[in-house]
Each structure stands twice: as structure tokens, then as C-alpha cells.
């Protein structure tokens, strides 16, 4: 069955605390941190972007399980922050992991769910026999305008998954999606920062689509929340995934391993991929995982995953690359001035 052959995550080492951002804008940091459930967020280094993080995540995946580079037939990078408007991130990733030239590649954009859309595409290519392995990446150096609510959470990171059907560490039993034209968050061509509909991004957007895909998945699989060991939901903050999990009937214990947002922030396209990675870091054979992403605009992709014996076998070395927990540890904290420099918010002449 088609599934995850190997995976890897990447998170930059820099952090800024929610209270430090609030200090600059004269807001109550403790109140905002408690409201969002986000204490701090990751910040990219001056020379990091979606391409560099995607390469590091893919290399970590290949360190855990070495697969023939000429068997990688497709690479898709999902992001809202591709460094080029025209020139594929995926081709650079392919070159950097030595998978070129006999492969197809493309960049995806669907707000925060482009990474899970990439997983679905790779599943289709593998199932149809068009490729042996496909690489799906979700990564972002997320943007949030200075002083905007998004600035408290927009962070950086990503994860890569190699999809195939040759002894996967986790089988993807089923996937389904729920999509509608809902303008809750957007960024027009040439604009540096995204715009959003404020509270409109809640009920008619995030909650409607996440619940829509989640209900569809459980209906098609004939499952209930108690059939799953773990669940991962898109995490723009800690409040939304906790609330939607409770609405669907999942417990806080089920979502805890995959909820990285309190210490990571919202990595946009990287959010659910990092949540899946964090869960696979601790998963055991037989564990049943429920996943639902969300991308503004709007849509959700759901996945039903079962971890296999391969995750603890000789073909896979989980400790060959850092876990999400290890990547989150030992962050280096920046003040707002250095953060602004790292994010390119200071215009230099």
C-alpha cells in the first residue's frame, strides 16, 4: 500500500517570544500569548528561506532511509513563500538531493495546505505506477505584517515526506478533501504581506473546512475519533486545533504530540507536515493517526494513516536525523530589532 517511506523536518534555531513582539506594539503580551496559546515562534536565519529549509528537511529524510536518487520521480514543494515568483523551488531541491534530471517537479500554493496537497499528488503518482518515489514538502518562512495579529504567530519551518509503496513506515489508508471558495486570507501579486478577514477566518473558514474533511474521512473509513491513537490538525494558533479537536470528539492526549504551535508558531505550509513528523517521531507500529490540514481560500485535506513495523526495522533509522522535539530545543532568542533584520522588515539603502 502507498505510504510514507521516510520523513524529515527542519526548524531554524532562532526564536522570538510573543511578549517581545507585544512589547514593541504596546500590547499585553501575556494576554496575547495565553489567548493564542503561542509562547514563542521560530525565526529564519538571514540566509534561510523555503528552499534551504526544504533541502534540509529532505536530506534529513534521506539520512533516515537512503533511497536510490534515480528512483525519485517527482518533487513538489508547497509554500506561500517560494523565493522566486517564477523559478521552481522544487528543481533546486531536486538538484540538492541529487534526484535530477529524470523527474518531474512543481511548486504548489494553497495557503497553509500546499504541503498536504503535495502528499496527495505523490500518492496518485505512486498508485498509478508513474513514479516509484515522490517527494512532498511543506515549508514556509511565513509572512505577517508588522503590528498585525499574524505577526505573533507567523514562523518558519518545514517537513519532507518521501511517498512510495515499497515497505512504508506508515501506510496512508485513505485521503479525501473538502474545498470551497472562501476568501478568509489572501496575498495579492506583488504584495509583501497577506491580508485576512479577521474573525471570518474562524467559523466559515477553518472550522467549516476542517470539520468537513474530518467528517468525510470518518464517514468513508467507518471510523470514530476513539479509533485513532493520534490526531493532527492545522495549527495557526493553539486555540483552533484544540477547539476543533474537541468539537470532533478527539481528546487533548491524542493531539498533544503533533501540536508544535505553542513553541513553534504557525509555519503555514509546514504546520501539518511538522505535526505529522513530531507524531512519527514517537509513534509505534500499529498506531493509527488522523490528519486534517487547512489552507485558506479554502480547503482541507484529511489522511488516515497506520504506522507499520518498518518504522522500528533495520530499513529505517529514526535517530539518524533530529526529531521535532530536538529541533525545538535550545532556541536562540532575538529581540524585536534583530527579528526585524532577520525578516527583512528593515529597508536598507
Amino acid at each position, binding site marked *: 500500500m502507498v505510504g510514507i517511506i521516510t520523513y524529515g523536518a527542519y526548524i531554524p534555531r532562532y526564536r522570538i517570544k510573543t511578549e517581545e513582539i507585544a512589547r514593541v506594539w504596546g500590547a499585553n503580551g501575556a494576554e496575547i500569548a495565553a489567548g493564542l496559546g503561542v509562547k514563542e515562534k521560530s525565526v529564519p*536565519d*538571514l*540566509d*534561510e*528561506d523555503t*528552499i*534551504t529549509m526544504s*533541502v*534540509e528537511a529532505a*536530506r534529513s529524510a534521506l539520512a533516515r532511509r537512503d533511497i536510490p536518487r534515480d528512483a525519485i520521480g517527482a518533487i513538489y514543494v508547497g509554500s506561500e513563500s517560494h*523565493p*522566486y515568483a517564477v523559478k521552481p523551488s522544487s528543481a*533546486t531541491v531536486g*538538484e*540538492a538531493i*541529487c534526484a535530477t534530471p529524470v523527474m518531474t517537479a512543481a511548486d504548489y500554493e494553497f495557503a497553509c495546505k500546499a504541503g498536504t496537497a503535495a502528499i496527495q499528488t505523490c500518492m496518485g503518482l505512486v498508485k498509478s505506477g508513474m513514479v516509484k518515489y515522490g517527494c512532498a514538502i511543506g515549508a514556509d518562512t511565513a509572512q505577517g505584517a508588522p503590528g498585525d495579529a499574524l505577526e505573533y504567530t507567523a514562523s518558519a519551518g518545514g517537513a519532507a515526506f518521501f511517498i512510495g509503496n515499497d515497505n512504508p513506515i506508515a501506510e496512508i489508508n485513505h485521503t479525501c478533501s473538502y474545498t470551497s471558495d472562501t476568501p478568509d486570507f489572501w496575498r495579492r501579486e506583488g504584495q509583501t504581506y497577506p491580508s485576512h478577514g479577521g474573525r471570518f477566518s474562524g467559523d466559515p473558514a477553518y472550522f467549516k473546512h476542517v470539520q468537513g474533511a474530518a467528517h468525510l474521512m470518518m464517514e468513508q473509513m467507518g471510523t470514530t475519533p476513539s479509533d485513532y491513537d493520534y490526531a493532527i490538525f492545522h495549527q495557526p494558533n493553539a486555540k483552533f486545533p484544540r477547539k476543533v479537536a474537541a468539537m470532533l470528539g478527539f481528546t487533548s492526549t491524542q493531539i498533544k504530540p503533533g501540536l508544535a504551535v505553542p513553541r513553534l508558531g504557525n509555519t503555514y505550509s509546514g504546520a501539518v507536515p511538522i505535526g505529522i513528523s513530531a507524531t512519527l517521531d514517537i509513534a509505534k507500529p500499529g498506531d493509527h493517526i488522523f490528519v486534517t490540514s487547512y489552507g485558506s481560500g479554502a480547503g482541507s485535506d484529511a489522511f488516515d494513516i497506520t504506522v507499520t513495523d518498518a518504522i522500528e526495522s533495520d530499513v529505517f533509522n529514526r535517530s539518524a536525523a533530529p526529531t521535532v522535539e530536538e529541533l525545538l530545543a535550545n532556541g536562540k532568542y532575538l529581540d524585536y530589532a534583530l527579528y526585524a*533584520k532577520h525578516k527583512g522588515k528593515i529597508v*536598507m539603502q
Partner: protein
Amino acid sequence: MSVPRYWRKQLNRYNLKGSKCETCGRHFFPPRGLCPECRRDGKIVDCEFSGNGTVRTFSIIRTASSDYDIQTPYPLAIIELDEGTCMTAQVICEPEEIHIGMKVKRVFRRIIAEGNGGVIVYGTKFVPA
């Protein structure tokens, strides 16, 4: 740097692809087509370096050209790769953190971006191992 010139070195910069002489075992980065020791007796083949190495010496760059100015101060080091050859590269750490003998490993980073509209050059830098 012109786009074709950067592109020609791309494979070397991304994956530390060099060469080695199978006759004497010496490694070269950037790659050489002829072994300076073995000359015509040498047999040169392509090789990829592991990306692990040791800082042999370094300098802290405090005044850089405009494209690198935002990163100052930063350490620039001569790194002896585990396979035996040396290369010059940026080490991503605090200036006070770097020292001779420090173990480092490769990472994939932006090297330079030619303004807001030019090409972005990627390649290998190092971080403490």
C-alpha cells in the same frame, strides 16, 4: 557573478562534489582534472564529500561587500574536510563561538542574492557539528 558562471559551479556548491586521485588517494575540492602528484600516472574520478570537517583557521569578517554586509560580523573559515582537502566557507555561529579544531558539518544556505530582482545563489555553509 554571471548567471552561467554560477550555474557551472552549482553541483559542486550544492553537494560538495569534487574529485579524487585513485592512484594516491588525494581528494580535491573544487575538482581537479589532473593529480599534481601522480601527473599522468594518476586516475581522477568524481567524488562527493561527506560534509563533515574541522576548522583549521578562521577570520571574522566585520566589513564586507554590500551583498554580505547585513550578515556582519560573521566567521569565514578554512575547513579541512574529513576526506583530507580544505575549502573556504562561512561558518554559521557567533564570532566568539568559533575556534580552531571545531568540528563542523555542512548545511544548505543562501550564499548571495543579487538585489531584489537578480538570481539567488545557493550553496554549502557549515554549522557546529
